[in-house]
């Protein structure tokens, strides 16, 4: 049955958490989908644009990400990560599919890494309804990454933003594969531990 689709930001939608909105989406609530879109579209778009460097491709990824949310909302498990983590996971996966299909990755990797911008910390939040929280998250991640040795940080950024495998990173940086594996493992362990510690001290 087709139900009215104008975005009617009812009071209850505005007050719901992201996880609660996803729960409603799983029940077929189209307005909840609209509310989640309004709340998270900038985060998803920013990541897609960073990965792809093309506004049209980023637009495709944004729509496909929220379409997957509509179709698979019931699969979301709050115990396995935040909604924004889930959205980023979907968006990054779609973006990397596009990059690999179009074989544009080599030209985009440099820009993906070089476009890293400290001013992002000072900008407004990606989430208009959760500005402080998003800014804090950004600061936490930035702080944790800044504590990593540069070569470790480079390895995980090439993997995350460039979509490169460990072997491809080794080839690109001219380092032995074993070295890259060690750098990635150490970097992610430190990042996880540091973020966990920073989050605990922030609460």
């Amino acid at each position, binding site marked *: *049955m*087709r139900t*009215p*689709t*104008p*975005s*009617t*930001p*009812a009071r209850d939608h505005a007050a719901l958490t992201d996880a609660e909105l996803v729960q409603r989406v799983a*029940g*077929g609530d*189209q307005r909840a989908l*609209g509310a989640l879109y*309004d709340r998270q*579209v*900038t985060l998803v*778009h*920013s990541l897609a*644009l*960073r*990965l792809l460097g093309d506004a049209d491709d980023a*637009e495709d990824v944004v*729509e*496909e990400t929220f*379409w997957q949310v*509509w*179709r698979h909302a019931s699969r979301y498990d709050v115990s*396995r*990560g935040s909604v*924004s*983590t889930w959205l980023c*996971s979907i*968006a*990054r996966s779609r973006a*990397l*599919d596009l990059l690999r*299909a179009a074989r544009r990755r080599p030209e985009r990797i440099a820009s993906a890494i070089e476009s*890293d*911008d400290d001013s*992002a910390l000072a900008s407004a*939040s990606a989430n*208009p*309804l959760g*500005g402080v929280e998003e800014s804090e*998250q950004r600061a936490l*991640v*930035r702080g944790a990454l800044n504590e990593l040795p540069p070569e470790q940080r480079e390895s*995980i950024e090439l*993997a*995350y933003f460039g979509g490169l*495998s*460990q072997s491809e990173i080794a080839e690109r940086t001219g380092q032995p594969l074993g070295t890259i*594996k060690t750098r*990635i*493992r150490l970097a*992610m362990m430190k*990042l*996880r531990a540091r*973020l*966990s510690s920073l989050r605990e001290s922030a609460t």
Partner: protein
Amino acid sequence: MTHAEAQELLAALSLDATSTDEREAILAHVAVCDECARELGELRDAAHGMAQLARETPMDPVRQARVRAHLLARAADRAQPAGAPPPRPAAITMPPRRLTRFSTARFVAAAAIVLIGVALALYAVSAGQRANDLQRDTQRLLAAQRGFEREIAARDSALADRQALLDAMTGAGVQVIEAGAPGARKPSGKMFWDQTSGQWTFVAHNLPHAAPNRTYQLWLITRAQRKISAGVFATSASGDALVIAHYPLPQDSLAAIAVTDEPSGGSPQPTTAPVLVGTAR
């Protein structure tokens, strides 16, 4: 794969940086190892935290409104009953977008495929390349062909959507409501209400940017003074905006449309004086 081997590779898996074989082996272990499953979850959270580092780039308002409208229309077409299992996975369906030189693009795409194929065949024969080289090139060609096919499908879809938009704005049953405001920049808006399909297409010009943490919200006001939100929107750099919504309303029940300035995310009811108002015929 042993527990120790899986532990060594969990970090790489959280970044999708393993080989396909490694990935399958680790996931098989994770499926039966609670410790590794928990650790992988935490590492993925940390990995996707890196998304926060992407320079914040809000979507162009017109694109954002277009994607929203298209997304909700798709959702309405494939409404999922509460508690229903998720639909089957499907191929990526790309949204419609710009429409330029459609027939030329189709011709160029087909010609490119043919030319690349001929070039590849000559190359393979004359150079006597090994079979695995040919296979690799063929796979690349097939990938390129899939890309062309997807682009053609997207353009077909864009053409259909563009036609539908034109119908919604120019059809016999369309009522047009103009909205204006005094002032130097003279913000203005025009609503195209397709009473047959229940589609509302609103176009605005010269609207100043909403303040931080504020947004514009479009309202349908009935003769009974019921105020129905038709969506929130932002403006482009030039102050333009496009909002598309679907809502069935009886023909004689609309009194006016209005645009108000509201907190981000919108309000259940207008909280400020309208910046644009239009009276229905």
